[in-house]
């Protein structure tokens, strides 16, 4: 994928491809297929309505679905060790056992879970010195806590022997020592466990420590499994189901379970009861074995856990199991997770293309996205998918509605879900009763309710009245301030802005769409692929016209703005980039004088710092074709000076057409350089590409929407103005050197066009190439620019 920071490098490479005399390979478009991350996925229904941070990993998101390593994770995503309740429960048990209120939880947690074995074991002779001020260590030194201290040392000793890949990291001698020491420790801990003097607190702890030690160090599978099962049954099974030691014991037991159904069942139990093992038990759960696991379940809650785990692996439609859970356990805690995932899937499949004009990150439908470079095998399917997904949306909604009377704890979840599904289906009136019925007022529920009210307002009110705009500003500013940062990508505020922008799009107000998208940073979501600068112009450049760009300028420069206008334009200190775009649009229309008058409104300093102009626009386009190794000139250009020079030359050739050969040549050079083959293409467009505007690849749209398209295309792709002026130079000039230059460039244009034709592989020399070879061999220009391809071709002829 072509990131913008690499873009410059590729660009230089592309424009350095020899202009002529090397048969060019047809360049393939750097088509951007698909998306990365949740940045470009439409998600308005909060995935965190389950209000359990341990579920974050199971939301329907790109990051967690495909995230195989830390590099894929959003930087501010919570770390699961930080949010696990398991460790807090263990800390609470220790605190009760040690019976010392002065012990701080953080000290306990730090020693138990964040202290390496060697640190504690090396410091055991003078622990209070090794861990100064640690209240847990201090309490353990009291005579009454001697047994606890001894266990802690044994625990840390055991942690030294819980390594995988010892045969990768250790020498053979070390491995032998390691195995012997582990076995010796197993024997020692087994003897301790068999003693009758262990407290009820320590007995299961020694059993669990031994169980885990055996798990990592058993060489004989069969015997090891039997011993581990025995330990579990004797010491951990009698504990309460909520005791984390039992659950953690089950975790290891599950991994040794040979029966596929029971193995899946045990993993589901661990998933259900433990936070810190949720991710691992999900990884170990084989969804194909879910049906075999169900008969082992003891109650509806366990069945719900099994069904949930199965659906967490399902990127497709999960209604069947949602329905079963609604019937079997209507108050299941997992419904928030599963219903949220299902709505997020629908938002992605149906609405990401519509609202964000892109594919979405996962299993996208492609509706609204132009695949014109592809075969049309999917054309009909895209419509089918949309219709079917909408039907599925309605079925899901009806299912949730039907289940409403049966649930107590999930009532508000279902109210939010049903209202949201109605609004997605553009049925605002039907949604209203469910919005107003929501009672729960926790932050995430309040956020979701506010979003629904906002959607309802958009669908029912006149967006252009000051009253509505005032209400919208209030909600949007509130959302911006209060949105949860649990997920970096699907930012609620941005999604609300996308929704509003899309509503304005239906009314054809391109200026409002652009301002809303920019304020919502929707286009800067593409930050990795095009510049922030261009992201603000992107929509207007593709879909806008002169009037809409002017309207944006007017709104930015307006003195007494309404709160809504102030909200939309407050990020702009001036309108310079929009003047830049407006002038460029005039240029594309051939209105050079008007373009110049627009560029003159922009200060000269703008061209030095804005966009990539310093790299791609400063060269002299009138006297230098870079690939012909022509010398650089001292002139430094920007859009304003370029337009001014262009205008002067145009006036010259109009006034004295017969005596303007040098002006014709300069104009030919300029228009050649403004084409995709030239060195100053940035005069006319914001991104070089084979297919047109670079960022249009990103959204999957070809630049056919560029208005007006024809003139721009004629020059950018086909070099028609360059051809016209070079021909005029050739016709009117008496100077053989100048004529040779013009003929050579005409041959280049001819050849560039020819090689864009399908299957144009063979050596091609057209009319102007032949003329150049026949008529201008004696010129200095010819000698300075030898062309073996033309020469070989002509000599063979």
């Amino acid at each position, binding site marked *: 994928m072509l990131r913008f920071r690499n873009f410059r490098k590729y660009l230089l490479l592309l424009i350095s491809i020899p202009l002529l005399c090397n048969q060019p390979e047809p360049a393939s478009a750097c088509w951007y297929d698909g998306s990365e991350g949740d940045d470009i996925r439409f998600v308005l229904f909060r995935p965190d309505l389950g209000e359990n941070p341990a579920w974050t990993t199971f939301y329907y998101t790109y990051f967690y679905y495909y995230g195989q*390593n830390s*590099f894929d994770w959003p930087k501010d995503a919570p770390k699961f060790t930080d949010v696990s309740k398991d460790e807090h429960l263990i800390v609470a048990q220790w605190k009760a056992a040690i019976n010392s209120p002065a012990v701080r939880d953080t000290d306990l947690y730090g020693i138990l879970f964040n202290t390496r074995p060697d640190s504690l074991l090396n410091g055991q002779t003078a622990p209070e010195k090794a861990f100064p001020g640690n209240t847990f260590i201090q309490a353990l030194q009291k005579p009454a806590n001697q047994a606890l201290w001894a266990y802690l040392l044994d625990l840390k000793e055991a942690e030294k022997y819980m390594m995988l890949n010892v045969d990768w990291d*250790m020498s*053979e001698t070390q491995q032998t020592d390691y195995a012997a020491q582990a076995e010796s420790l197993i024997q020692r801990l087994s003897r301790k466990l068999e003693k009758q003097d262990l407290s009820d607190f320590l007995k299961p702890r020694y059993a669990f420590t031994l169980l885990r030690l055996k798990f990592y160090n058993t060489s004989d599978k069969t015997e090891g499994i039997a011993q581990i099962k025995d330990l579990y049954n004797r010491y951990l099974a009698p504990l309460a189901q909520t005791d984390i030691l039992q659950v953690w014991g089950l975790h290891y037991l599950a991994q040794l379970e040979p029966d596929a159904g029971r193995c899946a069942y045990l993993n589901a139990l661990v998933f259900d009861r433990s936070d810190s093992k949720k991710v691992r038990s999900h990884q170990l759960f084989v969804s194909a074995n879910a049906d075999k696991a169900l008969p082992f379940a003891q109650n509806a809650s366990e069945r719900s856990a099994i069904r949930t785990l199965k659906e967490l692996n399902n*990127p497709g439609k999960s209604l069947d199991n949602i329905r079963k859970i609604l019937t079997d356990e209507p108050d299941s805690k997992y419904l928030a997770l599963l219903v949220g995932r299902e709505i997020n899937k629908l938002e992605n499949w149906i609405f990401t293309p519509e609202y964000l004009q892109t594919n979405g990150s996962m*299993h996208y439908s*492609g509706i609204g996205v132009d695949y014109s470079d*592809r075969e049309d*095998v*999917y054309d009909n399917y895209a419509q089918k998918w949309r219709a079917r997904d909408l039907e599925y949306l309605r079925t899901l909604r009806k299912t949730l509605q039907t289940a409403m009377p049966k649930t107590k704890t999930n009532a508000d979840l279902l109210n939010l879900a049903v209202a949201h599904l109605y609004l997605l289906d553009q049925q605002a009136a039907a949604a209203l009763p469910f919005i107003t019925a929501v009672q729960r007022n926790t932050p995430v529920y309040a956020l979701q309710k506010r979003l629904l009210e906002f959607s309802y307002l958009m669908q029912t009110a006149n967006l252009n009245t000051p009253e509505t705009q005032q209400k919208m500003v209030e909600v949007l500013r509130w959302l911006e301030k209060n949105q949860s940062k649990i997920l970096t990508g699907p930012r609620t505020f941005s999604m609300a802005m996308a929704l509003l922008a899309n509503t304005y799009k239906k009314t054809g107000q391109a200026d409002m769409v652009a301002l809303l998208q920019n304020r919502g940073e929707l286009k800067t979501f593409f930050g990795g692929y095009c510049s922030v600068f261009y992201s603000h112009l992107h929509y207007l450049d593709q879909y806008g016209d002169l009037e809409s760009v002017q309207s944006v300028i007017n709104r930015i420069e307006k003195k007494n703005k309404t709160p809504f206008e102030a909200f939309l334009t407050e990020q702009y200190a001036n309108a310079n980039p929009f003047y830049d775009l407006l002038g460029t649009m005039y240029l594309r229309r051939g209105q050079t004088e008007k373009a110049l008058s627009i560029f003159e409104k922009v200060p000269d300093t703008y061209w030095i710092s804005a966009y990539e102009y310093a790299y791609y626009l400063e060269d002299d386009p009138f006297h230098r074709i870079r690939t012909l190794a022509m010398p650089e000139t001292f002139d430094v250009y920007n859009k304003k000076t370029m337009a001014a020079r262009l205008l002067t030359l145009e006036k010259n050739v109009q006034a004295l057409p017969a005596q303007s050969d040098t002006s014709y040549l300069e104009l030919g050079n300029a228009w050649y350089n403004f084409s995709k083959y030239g060195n100053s293409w940035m005069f006319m467009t914001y991104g070089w590409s084979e297919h047109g505007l670079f960022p249009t690849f990103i959204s999957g749209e070809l630049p056919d929407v560029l208005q007006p398209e024809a003139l721009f295309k004629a020059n950018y792709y086909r070099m028609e103005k360059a051809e016209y002026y070079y021909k005029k130079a050739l016709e009117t000039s008496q100077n053989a050197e100048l004529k040779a230059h013009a003929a050579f460039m005409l041959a280049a244009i001819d050849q560039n066009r020819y090689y864009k034709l399908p299957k144009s592989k063979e050596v091609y020399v057209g009319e102007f190439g032949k003329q150049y070879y026949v008529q201008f061999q004696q010129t200095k220009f010819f000698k300075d620019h030898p062309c073996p391809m033309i020469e070989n071709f002509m000599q063979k002829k």
Partner: protein
Amino acid sequence: MKHPLLLFAALVLTLHCHSSAGPTTIIPAFYFWQTDSDYISRNFVEKLGVQKIFLRLFDVAWDGQKPIPAGPYRGVFSYTGIEMVPVVFITNETIQHIDSSGCLDLATRISRKSKAMLRRMESSLRTSNRWDLVFADSALSETQREDSLVRSGNAWLRNIRHFQIDCDWTASTRARYFYLLEQLQALNPEWTFSATIRLHQYKNPEKTGVPPVKSGMLMCYNVDDLKDQGTENSIFNYSEVRKYLQNAPKYPIPLDVALPAFRWGVLFHLNQFQCIIPDNALGPATMERLEAIDKTHFRARMDFTLNDHFIREGDILRLESADQKELLKTIQLLRSQSLAQPLTVSFFHLNSNLDEDAAIPQFQEILTAFN
């Protein structure tokens, strides 16, 4: 079959043949590439006279900072009548990231882990219930049986004489990879190292070099771009293979041959590669949800989830396997290459999804075609 070894001998004799380069003895073999199964069909062993199994021990991958062992074999290879050749697959990315001291370190680690795994396997073999099915004579006393097990177990480990390294090295990694191979050989003189040779390496030895090993395994599969929907068959395609074999210079080290014996589906959504669907997920329940476009391409008739992938109506599945006729044509090309004598012909890969009734005659036909 009471004495499968007799059958091996018979088959080997049958396959003792004469090519243009002189008499060739064919040694039938299989690759075993799974992580947790020790499935080996007796039918394959007996009817094909399989004498060697190339068993993947583990992969070496780059975790972003260092080489790590990945996907280790967790089963027990319990067939002592067959020569077992351990194989370690190393990703080219790993080689890209290490320098010469890293190579030395990696060689040490690979040797260490391989030996530990083999020792563990041997240890399990001694105590495995399966052991007496294969070896122990019921007439022996318990003590005699134990002795027999220990002796045979030790012999099993000692009998490993050959070790293979699999890596798709390139011109830019050849120096480091070859140095790694040299170090592995130096550290493990009891084993003779071989290396896999991909077709592009075979065709361009001047570019990618020749690994410093006694022999190579020419891998005649995975010949085309899997992810390109326009690819006809990425597993095997005669016209692609021919490009590499025809007019190839004589390869400087003797080569055995690996041929494909696997099948998979390649899923495309909106003309983009999505995933590989393994053979075991392509049963009747899946196939009835697809309609055939042609012999190898199928279109989803409905939306459904398969192997944790969401398949949309209209998505395309390309079913890939090696065509028997094309394989036979390729063998004619292979016979004109300078191959090892005796020649090991190894099929990739042995697994429980192979339809024995259909596969065994095909494998026999292929082995005979080297005649």
